[in-house]
């Protein structure tokens, strides 16, 4: 009895515990780690893929996945940059319209949201598995970004006030962090308080049950990829403002961080299970882990190894706990039956 309670507690608060533990370890090695400036810096670093992780959570909860996020962030960023730039990078390329940053941002977000809709269309209408659709789009979109820029960064023509979004702060808190927290909060409300959120969980739990309960599962499936695309767009714009240049390689490999953060946070890759609160801590853990590793002067190559290992470990724990749960519940059921229901 005690054991099960412990497992339940760990399931609920375990991720926060791991978070505290990792913080403690790094502080022990590098006392500077706990410094408020460093902590705020970590928060700022994670805000970018943290926003994307909210969209990813929606996709994962329906039993899908969006691997195109890295490229999609890059696309929004480049679309915005190209239109805002004072002149085309080279004569045969588009852009250089020196457009108002707000319109540029809207255009960037529209395009990446459109990509999300297109992902949804391929998944819903042609029945290609989400993993394949978004893996394909990951490549396609990055290609489009390179074609649009000739693989050259865009530097010129950004208005000064545009920098506020990525580099400014309100009080001590950087703007990206505020945006991240707001989006987290909205995502949490949508998933926990609305009918739509219920439907997302239901679809991931069992699509046929959802359909036979009168849920328009196609609509829900479209919507999560649109949400993911939209949040990629927002991230792209903030990232552009932060970098203050249109880097064609921006946000590369985000899918890795984001999926890992979600799974670390307890979102099941099989769908239907997971809390956004967990994802929040998953994102933070990823942040402190890499900040800590950098402070300990670990090379980028080792970081890659650790990144991959963390993902495998998180997924492994998820599947293992599922198998264990199945066994436990079977036992519980036969026990309940023996005691005459």
């Amino acid at each position, binding site marked *: 009895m005690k054991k099960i309670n412990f497992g339940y507690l760990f399931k609920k608060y375990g991720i926060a515990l791991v978070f505290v533990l990792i913080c403690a370890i790094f502080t022990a090695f590098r006392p500077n780690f706990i410094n408020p400036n460093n902590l705020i810096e970590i928060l700022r670093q994670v805000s970018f893929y943290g926003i994307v992780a909210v969209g990813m959570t929606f996709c994962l909860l329906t039993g899908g996945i969006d691997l195109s996020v890295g490229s999609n962030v890059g696309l929004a960023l480049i679309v915005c940059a190209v239109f805002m730039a004072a002149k085309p990078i080279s004569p045969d390329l588009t852009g250089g319209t020196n457009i108002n940053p707000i319109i540029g941002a809207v255009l960037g977000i529209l395009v990446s949201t459109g990509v999300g809709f297109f992902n949804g269309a391929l998944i819903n209408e042609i029945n290609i598995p989400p993993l394949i659709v978004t893996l394909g789009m990951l490549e396609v979109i990055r290609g489009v970004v390179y074609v649009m820029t000739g693989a050259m960064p865009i530097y010129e023509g950004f208005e000064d006030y545009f920098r506020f979004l990525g580099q400014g702060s309100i009080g001590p808190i950087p703007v990206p962090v505020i945006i991240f927290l707001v989006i987290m909060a909205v995502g949490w409300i949508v998933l926990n*308080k*609305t*009918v*739509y959120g*219920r*439907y997302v*969980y*239901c679809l991931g*739990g*069992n699509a*046929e*049950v*959802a*359909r*036979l*309960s*009168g*849920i*328009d599962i196609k609509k829900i499936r479209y919507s999560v990829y649109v949400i993911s695309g939209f949040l990629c767009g927002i991230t792209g714009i903030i990232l552009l403002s932060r970098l203050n240049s249109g880097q064609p390689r921006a946000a590369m490999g985000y899918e890795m961080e984001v999926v890992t953060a979600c799974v670390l946070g307890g979102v099941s890759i099989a769908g*239907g*299970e997971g809390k956004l609160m967990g994802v929040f801590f998953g994102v933070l853990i990823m942040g402190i882990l890499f900040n800590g590793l950098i402070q300990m002067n670990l090379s980028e190559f080792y970081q890659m190894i650790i990144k991959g290992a963390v993902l495998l470990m998180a997924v492994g724990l998820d599947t293992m706990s599922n198998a264990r749960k199945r066994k436990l*519940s*079977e036992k*519980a*059921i*036969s026990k*309940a*039956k023996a005691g005459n*229901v």
Partner: protein
Amino acid sequence: MKDNLLEMKGITKIYPGVVALDKMDISVKRGEVHALLGENGAGKSTLIKILAGAVQRDEGEILFDGISYDQYSPNDAIQMGISVIYQEFNLVSKMSIEENIFFGKEHRNGIFLDRNAMIKKAREVFKPLGVEIDPREKISNLNVAYQQLVEIAKAILNRSKLIVMDEPSAALCTRELEILFKLIRQFKGEGTSIIYISHRLEEVFEIADRVTVLRDGKYVDTKLVSETNKDELIKLMVGRKLTGGYPQNNQKRDKVVLKVKGLTNHKLKNISFELRRNEILGITGLIGSGQTDLVRAIFGADPYIGEIFVKGKKVDIRSPQDAIRYGISYLPEDRKQDGILLEMSVRFNMSIASLKYYSHRGFIDKDKENKTVQKYVDAIRIKTPSFEQKSKNLSGGNQQKVILGKWLACASDIIIFDEPTRGIDVGAKQEIYTLMNNLVHEGKSIIIVSSELPELIGMSDRALVIYNGKITAELEKQELSQELILSKASTEGCETA
């Protein structure tokens, strides 16, 4: 006792929630055709699966050919000389006959397959069966009767001492059945034993030497066929009067609430019927005849052409959403696959279809949700420690009630139950029946799809029998009998299979 090929003693198998077999005994002599009789859910399939090594028994002993066996696998069973021909054949439909019958025991020529040898051997096996068949034909191109022959050919190649046939006649027409019987007699002559499972008593009298009856997982009796009769067997099988134990619906049938006209799709041919207020309409047929396809179409889960009228108004049902809007609800056949989210709470499952009734601008009103759930948990007496209990921890009967509660919360007037008591133990069954009866008393209408004939006969005010996607009979309560339904459910035609 020496002439017994198989002895199973005190076989017990317990699944979560159900005692499938309770100290079951059976013995089969060499060269004997032994019929196994019992209602659906009596434990026949479990017994067969244990014999085939597909399921491990919890208790009891198995003596085969003089040797006592402990745990063994399906592969061991084949080695021992036991072949089981399941109702759902165990064939790879995209592969050829020859590939299927030699699966796992391919003839080789060095490291390569010796196809010619296998094809030749296959022809030799089929010859005495008296059928012209090309071993290179794909299984998917064969009709059911031929697929069954392929299974029999597999059994012959295994040099089986015992062949178990699970409802072999279910999909066969008269002529095909005669061929099957000829084969069985031939096997018998060669000293092979047969366990023959069927619902149809006439077949038992035609082909079997002895018959063992099971009921509710327990051994009832074994009789020499020559010393018994139909009535006695039915009494042994059912163990009670057929209509007893079912609540009586004495409501007067009211106006038509659902009218279906010319409903057709890939499984259904021109189905028309009416359902009235306060009525329980039964739909039955052999497995896969189209009963489930019919109700799924009405619920909008499968596409169809044809017309549906709800309370006199023509409606266009293209999806379950539409059906729910018109007050139709559906409790699926496969509860765990299609009906309930096992990992989710009772509350989640019960409110998922009716959330829009207690939400404001998309936000759920938790108080109202809890009140609704409470109302139906009380009304249909769902036994759960709390609303937050995961559904998988409930018994089958209570899970079924959760699904029912979900639809009651939607205020449905027409409720379709598809095999409502499958895998549910006896006491809970009774409760479900009472609930159904209460619902029609409240003015609702019910369609019950069931292949358990006693249940269908006991519950229905009227019943449709479906064969091959067509209605072959519409029977009033007083006309309902097991024999009549079975004959209508496997009607004459040999056209397709």
